[in-house]
């Protein structure tokens, strides 16, 4: 029996676009003592900050438009990512220069969630499915909608 969707109708496709940005941050909780900050955050608590080359993967899910064969125009997604994330975060200090992270420790988890909240309302065609943010090749955070039942 043919599975629904495989012939083209109702096929949910996930499209992923990647970008890089470089930013500085450090971890500091003002409610912790200096010693607690050092114990909890280790090297990441150095107040002079340090930086990463972040790699961002944005996945949008949807049915391809029969007229274009596309879930969404990847050029448009690229522009949204550049405008919303690149311009806000690239070559910035995440503790001081990114309003959406004010009052938050700029961990991979919190940055991924902030990126989700910035992008989600801007995606016109398809739905934002996953934000994956690599802080290094060996560490990344995934953000999905809790209700999607998707595996984060």
């Amino acid at each position, binding site marked *: 029996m043919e599975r629904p969707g495989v012939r083209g109708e109702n096929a949910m496709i996930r499209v992923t676009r990647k970008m890089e940005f470089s930013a500085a941050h450090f971890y500091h909780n003002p409610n912790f003592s200096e010693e607690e900050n050092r114990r909890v955050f280790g090297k990441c608590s150095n107040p002079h900050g340090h930086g990463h080359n972040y790699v961002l993967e944005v996945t949008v899910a949807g049915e391809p438009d029969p007229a274009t064969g596309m879930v969404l125009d990847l050029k448009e997604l690229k522009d949204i990512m550049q405008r919303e994330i690149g311009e806000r975060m690239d070559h910035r200090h995440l503790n001081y220069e990114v309003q959406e992270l004010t009052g938050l420790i700029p961990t991979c988890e919190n940055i991924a969630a902030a990126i989700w909240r910035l992008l989600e309302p801007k995606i016109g065609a398809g739905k934002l499915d996953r934000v994956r943010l690599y802080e290094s090749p060996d560490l990344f955070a*995934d953000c999905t909608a809790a209700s999607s039942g998707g595996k*984060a």
Partner: protein
Amino acid sequence: MSGALKLSLTRRYRFAASHRLHQPNFSASENERIYGKCSNPYGHGHNYSLEVTVSGAVNPATGMIANLGELDPFVEREVVEAFDHKYLNEEVTEFASEVPTAENICREIYRRLRKFPAARLERVRIEETSKNSFEFDGEIGGREQRAP
């Protein structure tokens, strides 16, 4: 407007180990037929890449699901120290009675890591080579659900 979000954190570790795929219950020709080169009696090795994914609430005080200061030593102790530069068939107890295929290694790593106290273990993924990867998220019953 965004609804509730689900966050997970994935950390990659590495270990190098040797193994041999061989079932003592199978004849030599059966082992050869099923496992091919992998049943070479002297064993062979791989550089394994291990991705450990944890999920849960982000602690507002730390911004973290799990502190790597806790996750790293836990994974190092439970898996990396036990598997790295070892002959899995003979130096990891569980593989005395279980063929150390990547599937079984993946499941054994999941068993060891699900005891992690600070966050929920979401998934274990290993790459045995850059071409083969294996994942286990604790879901059981795949075999039973298949048609006979």
